[in-house]
């Protein structure tokens, strides 16, 4: 039983990373939203499995809230932001780095995440090293995704996947983190999505585009 739970947990963690790889291949906003929804679903599954293993009730609650917030609400919000910008949503998102090179880079980042995570003597109830490393990989690939996808919505989805990766890592190494903090973080995510949405719309209205290429007036 335990072995199967372990394996299923590892399986859902791997699926999360695969969704992240899938994002690198996705060239359309509805694809982004769908992949993000699935990714969140697998994160929630991981949390629920960790709940079964450790008997920690809070993890079920987190899983349930994650499903509601990140599988349904957030993707729906993302689609809503882009509804008025349909002509842009259908166009392929411009990439700074092509798909095959992105995938190779993501593979290298995954390796890096493993190498880093294995140096830490951390333990958790569920596949400790693998799952934490995979969470770290999701974070790194998320950063890469944000840097190389020249579209405001893509960058928003990138930020959101960072949080997914961290959530995965958290459940793997620190499942006891109090529920309150977890819920507050989820609340933060929702707020962030709303604010990002407002900005995306304002930018889109003003610039008539969702690509980031024209956003280079300010040099830092």
């Amino acid at each position: 039983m335990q072995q199967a739970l372990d394996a299923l947990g590892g399986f859902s963690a791997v699926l999360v990373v695969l969704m992240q790889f899938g994002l690198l291949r996705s060239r359309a906003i509805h694809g982004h939203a769908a992949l993000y929804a699935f990714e969140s679903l697998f994160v929630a599954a991981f949390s629920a499995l960790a709940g079964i293993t450790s008997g920690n009730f809070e993890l079920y609650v987190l899983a349930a809230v994650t499903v509601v917030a990140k599988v349904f609400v957030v993707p729906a919000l993302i689609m809503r932001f882009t509804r008025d910008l349909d002509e842009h949503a259908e166009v392929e998102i411009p990439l700074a780095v092509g798909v095959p090179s992105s995938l190779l880079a993501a593979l290298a980042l995954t390796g890096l995440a493993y190498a880093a995570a294995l140096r830490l003597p951390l333990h958790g109830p569920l596949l400790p090293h693998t799952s934490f490393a995979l969470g770290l990989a999701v974070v790194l690939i998320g950063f890469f995704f944000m840097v190389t996808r020249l579209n405001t919505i893509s960058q928003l989805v990138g930020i959101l996947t960072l949080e997914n990766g961290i959530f995965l890592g958290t459940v793997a190494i620190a499942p006891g983190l109090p529920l309150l903090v977890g819920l507050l973080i989820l609340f933060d995510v929702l707020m962030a999505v709303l604010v990002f949405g407002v900005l995306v719309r304002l930018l889109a209205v003003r610039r008539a585009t969702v690509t980031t290429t024209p956003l280079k007036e300010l040099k830092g």
Partner: protein
Amino acid sequence: MTLPPVVLQILQVLTLLVFSPLVSGVISRVEAMLQARRGPSVLQPYYDIWKYFHKGRSVPEGVSPVFTLAPYVAFACYMTVAMLIPVLTSFGLPLGYMGDILGGAFVLSLAAFAVALAGLDSGSPYAGLGSSRAMMVSVLAEPTLIFVFFTVALISKTDLPYVMGETLRSSWGAVFSPTHVLSVAAFFLMILVDTGRIPIESHSSTLEFGMIDEARIFEHSGPEMALLKWGSAMKQFLLYTIFLNILVFPWGLSHDGSPSSVLVALLALLAKMMVVAAVVVAIESSFSKLRLFKIPEFMGAGFILSVLAIVTFYLGGR
């Protein structure tokens, strides 16, 4: 009572010969039903093969003996592979040890090579096109397959197909381990590629420009055509068998070689095949064929999966 190993060995090959067209037939029938057509009978592949055997041969001018020999070579290759892998029994049969999983892969490659060579030899532009495309695809598929075999071999610490299945049977939880799932997924993608399914190729299309595998055999006719058609059904059956009896669900095989258990193993295998067929049909009906230039991207996805599997294995310790 147990059947002697020789009989079992022969039964494995016979299973392949007899039931491979059935699987193809079922797939096209279900697919047609999903598309709200009545579709051909599940026995249609048998009728086709029968028909081709009774047709006369016509050979293009100026071809070498390769053209005629290739179908026989390919057919023999497929029958050989059936001896190497666990089709019905969970224990190794006498000839099962004459090659490991890489050996099996090489024999399958030899078959593909022979057919491609015959296609080139025919001198027909379509057959030549199909052959060169098929070679391109298999060049891209090769690294992934090798990685998958390596990964499975690393887990089971052997490259003998029988032992690989046994490793999985002994720890069923490992079926869901990330490494295993990733390599299975990669292998499944490569099966779609090697059996010429969507998104690589459409079986039902009659448009020559989109063809890969089908185009190679344009110039063959009569008994050779029958062998090639039968052969491609056998190849599909073999790949599904490897997928099921080694990688995904190595249960239901005969442990002692008694006639009843062999019968159960056969029925179990066919039942498992139907499940895979259902998945393949679902994929065929929900995706469209990729443009030729997008194929490398698809192969890339498979490659990523297989490399991730190995990374997970080495660094994750599982």
